[in-house]
């Protein structure tokens, strides 16, 4: 019974521990804001508005209702491209990892895809898909796909032979082979790649929108740049960063800790 209670207790401790570790991150961010404020005062608000001015501008954007629609549009494009990349990259990567030939064939291709700058893809996408939704979605997909694919392939290739032998010796049925052997192993490779892909997807979507669409955060940035409105530009940047940090540290990181409890030492 005590052992049964220990699990939620340890989970609670881990959660508190995690939240407490946030103070360090917050301190570092506030120090950065102080330096930003200092630089703003030196150069003047036209060149570099300080963090308070930027936040005030962001609040203004939210208040007059012009902030939410572009953010939603960008988020939707990110989500489509990212979801397609995660799905296709994970599945194809796992399949490629199952066969030595496929792995050998795809390794140089992955290197090639990873090395290709997203801006080059964007130019191609603009030629192929025009100025619609498809261009940023495609660019996000093609930028994230090789990251996920490479990790999935690596995960499928590196399964411990000894553990596989144990699983066979104990006559694990196919369903258990999947849930108790392949899945946990592969997830430990896939999850970090998913997090990296999320960061990449936000960066790429803003860049793609800046050059190719008339709506979304990127397009709004293009407008504020044209009007030499530094405060609004910074407000958009802060909004995008806040979304990225929020999704990573409030959603993915705790999820990762939960999935990979067996890797992290709870009492280091």
């Amino acid at each position, binding site marked *: 019974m*005590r*052992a049964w209670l*220990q*699990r939620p207790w*340890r989970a609670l401790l881990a959660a508190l521990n995690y939240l407490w570790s946030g103070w360090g991150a917050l301190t570092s961010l506030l120090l950065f804001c102080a330096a930003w404020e200092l630089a703003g005062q030196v150069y003047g608000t036209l060149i570099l508005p300080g963090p308070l001015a930027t936040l005030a501008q962001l609040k203004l954007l939210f208040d007059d209702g012009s902030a939410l629609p572009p953010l939603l549009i960008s988020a939707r494009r990110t989500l489509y491209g990212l979801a397609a990349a995660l799905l296709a990259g994970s599945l194809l990567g796992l399949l490629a990892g199952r066969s030595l030939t496929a792995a050998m064939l795809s390794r140089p291709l992955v290197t090639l895809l990873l090395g290709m700058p997203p801006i080059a893809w964007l130019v191609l996408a603009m030629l192929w898909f025009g100025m619609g939704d498809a261009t940023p979605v495609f660019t996000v997909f093609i930028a994230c796909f090789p990251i996920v694919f490479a990790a999935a392939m690596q995960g499928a290739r590196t399964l411990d032979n*000894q*553990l596989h*032998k*144990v699983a*066979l*010796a*104990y*006559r*694990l*049925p196919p369903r*258990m082979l999947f849930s*108790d*052997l392949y899945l*946990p*192993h592969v997830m*430990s490779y896939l999850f970090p790649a998913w997090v990296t892909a999320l960061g990449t997807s936000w960066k790429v979507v803003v860049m793609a929108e800046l050059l190719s669409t008339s709506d979304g955060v990127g397009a709004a940035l293009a407008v504020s740049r044209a009007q030499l409105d530094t405060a609004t530009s910074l407000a958009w940047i802060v909004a995008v960063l806040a979304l990225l940090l929020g999704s990573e540290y409030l959603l993915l990181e705790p999820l990762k800790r939960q999935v990979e*409890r*067996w*890797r992290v*030492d709870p009492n280091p």
Partner: protein
Amino acid sequence: MNALHIRHLYHRFGPSEVLADVGLDLYAGESLALVGPSGCGKSTLLQIVAGLLRPSRMIMHCDFRGLGCVFQQPSLMPWMTTLDNLALGLKALGVPRAARHRQAAGMAARLGLAVSDLDKYPHELSGGMQSRVSLGRALVLAPDLLLLDEPFSALDVGLRLELYALLREQVEQRRSAVLLITHDLMEAVRLADRILLMVPEPGRLVHEFVLDRPHAERSEAWVHRNTGELMESREVRIAFGLDRGELHNAAPSHGEHRGCQI
């Protein structure tokens, strides 16, 4: 009586012959130790019995149904807690969650693990504890055939003696048959009823030593004396390359081959 019979077992890895004309018998309640120099095909033979390798040629008859394997490394699933690792084989058999956890917790207590260890992951356990869990994972199935591939080789003396006792208890209660691979002649003398000597190139059985003293009467002095005698025997010295000479295939000692059942 349940038994395992193997005759005319040959196995090749590519061009090299790993096992040639191996035959052995193992009966319920009996412990058989396989000794021999590294690379003589002991582990391959064990993997064939476990069904992990398909040999090139073999006649095998096996009545044993429940199988427990312990490998040289503990090889615990790194993403499972001690309790789930212990219950792995039970889960594969379809034992419901509550029942298998109860049995695994009982086994953990017999292994001398604390309640707080049950919820730990393998990387939080010491090497000795991991070995105990690995042995417990096999014993909790109450198997009628236990296959042990040098499971004690990395352990200190105290832990070894503890696990030997646990193993003997299992053999006496369940009348399990044990096939044990070891480098350690003293371990073989301590645990086995018969010791089979293997030599490499190609792997074959060349001699059988019978230890007929009951396990309860085996004292430390007896174990040491017999290990010494074994070390001095001509066959062991030739097999481990200490003396020169020729060794010929040994015939299985338990009766004649009475026709193929499979």
